[in-house]
C-alpha cells in the first residue's frame, strides 16, 4: 500500500475526522464565573487624589437625591433605597470626623452619589467617568470640572454605584474648578440590597479618609 493511497483511504479520513470533531467539542469551555454568588461578584474600587489632604476638610454636605445616569440620559431619584444609601454615606462621613452641614453653609466637601448604567460593551469608562455632579447645585455655577487621571481597569456593560467627594473648599485655588478628590465604584451583582454593607466596604478600604 503506497503512502498516498494510505492517506486517501476511508479509515484515514475517519481518523482525521474524529480528531477534528474532538477539537470542535473541546472549544466550548464552561463559564468560569457560573459558581460566583452575587456578594462575591461585587467589586469595590476606590481612587483618591494623592495630593489631597483629607484631614484639612471639616464639613461636608450630601446631595438629597441620587443622580441616575443611563448612557447619555440623566435624572434624579430618591426612592427608599436611594435614601438609605445617602443616610449610610452621611453616617460614614460623620464617623470619620466630618461635620454634616447644609449646602448653603459652604461645605468643604460635597458628596455625590450616582447610579450609572452603561450598556455599551468594551468601552473603558475613564477618563470620561465623573463630573456627574451639578456645579449649580453646589453653589459654584460658573465653575468648570477638573478631573484627575483616575482610571478604571475594566470594561463596562453594567449598572453600578458611583460615589464621589468634591473639593468645594479649594475651588478658587484649583483654578475655579471643582476637583474630585475621592471616588468609589461599587460594581457587580446584588447592588439593590444591603446599602450599609456596600457603603461601609468602600469607606472601610479608605483608611486615609479621616479628619484628624
Amino acid at each position, binding site marked *: 500500500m503506497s503512502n498516498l493511497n494510505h492517506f486517501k483511504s476511508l479509515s484515514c479520513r475517519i481518523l482525521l475526522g474524529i480528531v477534528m470533531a*474532538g477539537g470542535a*467539542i473541546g472549544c466550548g469551555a464552561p463559564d*468560569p*464565573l457560573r459558581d460566583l454568588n452575587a456578594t462575591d461578584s*461585587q467589586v469595590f474600587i*476606590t481612587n483618591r487624589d494623592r495630593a489631597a489632604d483629607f484631614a484639612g476638610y471639616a464639613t461636608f454636605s450630601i446631595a438629597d437625591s441620587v443622580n441616575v445616569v443611563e448612557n447619555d440620559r440623566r435624572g434624579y431619584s430618591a426612592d427608599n433605597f436611594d435614601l438609605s444609601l445617602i443616610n449610610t454615606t452621611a453616617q460614614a462621613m460623620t464617623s470619620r470626623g466630618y461635620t454634616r452641614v447644609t449646602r448653603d453653609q459652604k461645605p468643604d466637601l460635597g458628596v455625590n452619589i450616582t447610579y450609572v448604567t452603561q450598556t455599551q460593551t468594551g468601552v473603558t469608562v475613564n477618563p470620561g467617568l465623573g463630573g456627574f455632579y451639578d456645579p449649580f447645585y453646589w453653589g459654584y455655577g460658573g465653575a468648570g470640572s477638573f478631573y484627575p487621571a483616575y482610571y478604571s*481597569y475594566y470594561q463596562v456593560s453594567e449598572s453600578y454605584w458611583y460615589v464621589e467627594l468634591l473639593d468645594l473648599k479649594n475651588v478658587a485655588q484649583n483654578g475655579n474648578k471643582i476637583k474630585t478628590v475621592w471616588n468609589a465604584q461599587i460594581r457587580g451583582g446584588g447592588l439593590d440590597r444591603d446599602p450599609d454593607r456596600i457603603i461601609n466596604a468602600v469607606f472601610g478600604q479608605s483608611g486615609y479618609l479621616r479628619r484628624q
Partner: protein
Amino acid sequence: MKTIVFLSGLFCVLLMPAGLLAQQPVVPRETQAVSPYQRYTTYMVTLRYGVAQPLGGLSDYIDQTGTRNFALAGEWVRPGNLSYGAQYSTNSFKKRLPRQLYTFGDGADVSAVQTRTVSIQSLVATGKYHFAGVNARTRPYVQVGLGAALVDYGLYWGNLADEANGSTVHFTAQIAAGSRFLFGREGHWGADVQAGYQYVPYARSGISTVASAGASVGLFYRWW
C-alpha cells in the same frame, strides 16, 4: 461528568460505521496466520481523561490541580515499533481567591474576589516508539508531540473581566510515557495509561511559561 459521557458516546457513534466500512485487505491464504496488525499500517484512536498540575510560571498564577483535561488522538500504527498521528487536547486550570484588597500605586484600591483561569487547547503531531510488539497485551511507549497551542488567559475581579483577558497562539512541545493494554489478543479495544509533560513558552500577563505535568487514563480502538 456530562462532558465525559457525551464524548464517550460520540466516540462510539463515530466508530461504529468505521468498523463496518473499513475495507478488508485481501489476504493470501498462505499468510492468513499472520495478524494484519503485523503486516499493515493500521489505525487507532484514543480518548483520554486526566488531571494535571501547573508547573513553572503558571503555578505562580494558579497552583490548583486541573481536573478538566481531555485528549483525543488518532494514529497510524506501523507493524514495527513506531506510530505517528495527531492529538487534540484541552487542559483547563482555575483558581478562586477569597476577597482581598489590592492596592495600586496610584491611589487606587480594589476589593474583589479574584477568579483566575488558564485553558490550553493544543493540536500536535505525535510520534511514538513502542517497547513491545504490535499485538502485545501490554505495550509500553514513549511519545513526543510538537504543534500549536491556543492559550486562553482569564482574570476576573468579581464578575468583571480584566482587560488583559484573551487568547493567543503559541508553540507547544509535549512528552509522555505510558502503556496501552489490549483487552483481547487480536482485539480492537484496549486501555491506555499515560503520564506526560506539556510546555508552552508563553510570557504574557506576568506568566513566564505555561507548563504542566499530568496523568491520564484512556480507551482506545484500533482497526485495519
